[in-house]
């Protein structure tokens, strides 16, 4: 059972074409249309706006796509997509090789700094000159 109020709400959203409405409301809407003159009047009113929207859509379509232009746009789209999807495999892998190399360098650099720090702390070893005058010494004083 569909109330006239709900019918109006659905009209205000989906327009006069009941085929566009949520499936579970369609048969109730048809029944209401058969029994209620008010419902039919509301539908007619909504149809007026529907027709205007459809005409404006068609006009917009025609203005945007002149004859043959859509075919040209499609050909362009196929060519460009095809070129782009052919490219990524290589660049994608290269990008990961780049990331991996940078990461490996970062890890090695981190280990070296750690080693320098350790040897500096443990008796001012062979690497000690590299650390002097170091922040560690300054901080210790």
């Amino acid at each position, binding site marked *: 059972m569909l109330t006239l109020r709900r019918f109006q709400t659905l009209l205000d959203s989906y327009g006069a074409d009941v085929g566009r409405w949520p499936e579970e409301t369609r048969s109730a809407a048809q029944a209401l249309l058969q029994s209620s003159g008010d419902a039919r009047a509301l539908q007619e009113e909504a149809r007026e706006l529907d027709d205007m929207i459809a005409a404006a859509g068609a006009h917009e379509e025609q203005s945007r796509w002149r004859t043959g232009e859509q075919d040209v746009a499609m050909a362009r789209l196929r060519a460009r*997509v095809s070129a782009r999807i052919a490219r990524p495999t290589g660049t994608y892998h290269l990008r990961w090789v780049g990331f991996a190399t940078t990461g490996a360098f970062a890890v090695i650099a981190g280990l070296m700094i750690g080693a320098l720090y350790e040897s500096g702390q443990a008796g001012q070893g062979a690497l000690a000159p590299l650390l002097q005058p170091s922040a560690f010494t300054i901080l210790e004083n």
Partner: protein
Amino acid sequence: VEGLRVGDSAICGESVASPKAYGDAPDAVLVGWSAKGDRRAFDEIVIRHGPFALRVATRLIPDRRAAEDVVQEAMVRAWSQAAHFDAGRARFTTWLYRIIVNLCIDQRRRVQPEAIPEHFDPADPAAGAPEIIEAVERDATLAREMARLPVRQRAAMTLVYDEGLSGAEAGRVLGLSAKAVERLLARARAYLREVMLPKQEQEEIRRC
């Protein structure tokens, strides 16, 4: 029908040179092949869904060149995310619509669309009766107003009115409930009614 394309898979970098009926294959199968690197399968998807993608994008983004770029980007994303497509969860078209519409929404948020000029495709006075000219001008005015709608309202209208999706399907594309789509549609129609019907009524009064 595209028919069998024996050996195309080899051109496309596939290791198994099996014959494939690209033209007959359902979308989900083409996406599966695409996920394995079959570019010919993906080209079939572009052929099949490119026209609707262009149609939807040009309705949401008035600048046609920008709309074409968005569709191109959407297709490349669909290719790179093909392995994540789950045919059990969504139809391919819903999945592709979602990519396209989201990119259009992002694009519209980044760039304010250029308003369609006042004399966008004016009626040619030599073309016919004054009624025809009036109708063409009215359509142009409404097209301008439709382009001014917030992008989500416009997207809901495009999906439900032009592409024939149900409210629930449009909701899945937009990441909204069916009720929310209903509200977007209602707001869009209310605006268009307010803008258009009084003008038409005024014209009728003037004619009388």
